[in-house]
């Protein structure tokens, strides 16, 4: 049985070699791939496995494994109300940021795609947030949200409303951070969409113009279908980024007030580096990883029917 397997393997490898004479590039290829393989093994695959492994143990504050705990870390995490709230805030955060970022990014790109005077200026403006770090953006927004001096409350007062503690009221904090995040992420999404719209054949638009097709119709029936791979890419990237949002939460609310913005990533950070409980933090990391993988798979399945490649 085993001999047969080995024989088959030999045959199949012989086949590969005869198919193209360069099939013996393996040695060179491994040399070229070596740096990536070493780095990925060391900093992606090994730590991932280690995180899964650690999540099955109770750990000491020096992150030494103390005793095997099975799925206990997972159970403790999932039963705790902080974690459940964190899960809820994460979902709210993702739902509040992703659709609006993608829609605004696309609309701005659509509006500035025409080649007329001054457009270069608007393009610079709308792409600018891509060039501003999360830390700097957070400081700009901390001012915008300032209860006394900030512009948001000035607008509220102007319309005769009561000022709001955007970052200090548990009811609003997660939306405030989400709002700032939309702004931070639009720049990149905008640039991707603008590039994609501009790569659409001009003749298509000319034909549409000659036939007097309405712009909204053109957008719905032509541009959006053609851009479906771009939408797919942008939505996937946005979802993953939203789940991983960290800097703006750390700068603006530190997970507060009253855990209102204590998302999963922030809890993982706190549990591992502040509460020094790496067993539990690892379990939370694995849960988050599973959520992201499931969502990505579902989204891929779902969009397979909707995305069409040229």
């Amino acid at each position, binding site marked *: 049985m085993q001999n047969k397997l080995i024989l088959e393997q030999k045959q199949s490898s012989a086949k590969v070699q005869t198919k193209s004479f360069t099939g013996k590039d393996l040695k060179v290829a491994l040399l070229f791939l070596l740096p990536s393989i070493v*780095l990925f093994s060391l900093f992606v695959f090994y730590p991932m496995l280690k995180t899964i492994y650690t999540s099955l143990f109770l750990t000491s504050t020096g*992150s030494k494994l103390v005793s095997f705990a099975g799925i206990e870390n997972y159970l403790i995490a999932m039963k705790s109300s902080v974690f459940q709230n964190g899960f809820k805030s994460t979902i709210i955060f993702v739902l509040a940021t992703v659709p609006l970022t993608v829609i605004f990014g696309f609309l701005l790109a659509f509006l500035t795609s*025409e080649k007329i005077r001054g457009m270069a200026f608007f393009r610079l403006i709308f792409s*600018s947030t891509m*060039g501003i770090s999360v830390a700097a953006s957070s400081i*700009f927004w901390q001012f915008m949200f300032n209860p006394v001096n900030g512009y948001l409350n000035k607008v509220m007062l102007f319309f005769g409303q009561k000022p709001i503690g955007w970052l200090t009221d548990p009811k609003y904090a997660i939306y405030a951070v989400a709002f700032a995040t939309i*702004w931070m992420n639009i720049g990149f999404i905008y640039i991707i969409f603008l590039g994609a719209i501009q790569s659409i054949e001009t003749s298509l638009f000319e034909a549409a113009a000659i036939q007097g097709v309405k712009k909204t119709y053109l957008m719905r029936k032509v541009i959006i279908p053609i851009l479906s791979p771009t939408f797919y890419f942008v939505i996937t990237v946005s979802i993953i980024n939203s789940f991983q949002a960290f800097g703006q939460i750390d700068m603006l609310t530190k997970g507060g007030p009253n855990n209102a913005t204590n998302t999963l990533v922030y809890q993982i950070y706190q549990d591992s580096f502040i509460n020094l409980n790496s067993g539990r933090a690892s379990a939370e*990391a694995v849960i988050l990883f599973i959520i992201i993988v499931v969502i990505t798979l579902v989204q891929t399945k779902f969009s397979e029917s909707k995305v069409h490649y040229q």
Partner: protein
Amino acid sequence: MIKSNKFQTTILYIILIGLAVIYILPIFSGIMISFVPGIDYLGGSLFPKSLNFENYVKAFQNANVPRMMINSTITSSLIVTAQLIVSSLAAYAFVFLNFKWKEPLFFIFLMTMMVPFEATFIANFQTIKAMHLIDSYFGIALPSLASAFSTFFLRQTFKQIPNELIEASRVNGFNHWRVYKDVVMPISKQSLITLAIYQFLGAWNMYLWPLLVSTNNNVRTVQIGLRQIQSEEALTEWGVVMASAVIVALPTLIILYLSQKRLQEGLAEGAVK
């Protein structure tokens, strides 16, 4: 691209100006406040009475900003340079070499994009600590030196190089290393620059990882520096905090403005198709 008549164009301009004003407001107000002395800000003034660089001087003197700018420049350059080399080597193998486990290997490379940072950073921290690289430029840079995205991006670029060119070089006695170094890399210069800019922006803006592995001002990057300035000065010296944020944002904003067109063309090509 989509032609409009005069009336439509006017409406478009009005909409765009409105949107641009709202969009730019956080940056604009930040720049304004960076010129307002701390006491005036507490008194409620949001616009400078005169062009006053006091906050910028303070940011440069007290807050260690110049040192952190140098640190960020070093770590970002390190990441970009290494990533271009590591990823282009891998991309070369995937495009121009024929070997056994090519498809599965490429799939494994892509899989690394699925692994989120938070599934790895706890263990990576321990690795870097065990290597005694905490508080070093290498500690900050090391986990980012290989990139599936960059490999994928360059693979798309290399695929457009005609195979005849590679074969001709091979026939002329070039080994693969020379083909890579003297043929493929020079031809792909434009894409390499685009990728370098994109990755530089990303590296300069890294937040969580440098926060974990840098504990002193000798290696701390500007982003972590900003966090520190914010927590130390936010109550009294808002102008200084804003001035620091503006200083930190400026280099990447300039890079973005200079290369916006290149990015929008290059990223759409490389990332999506």
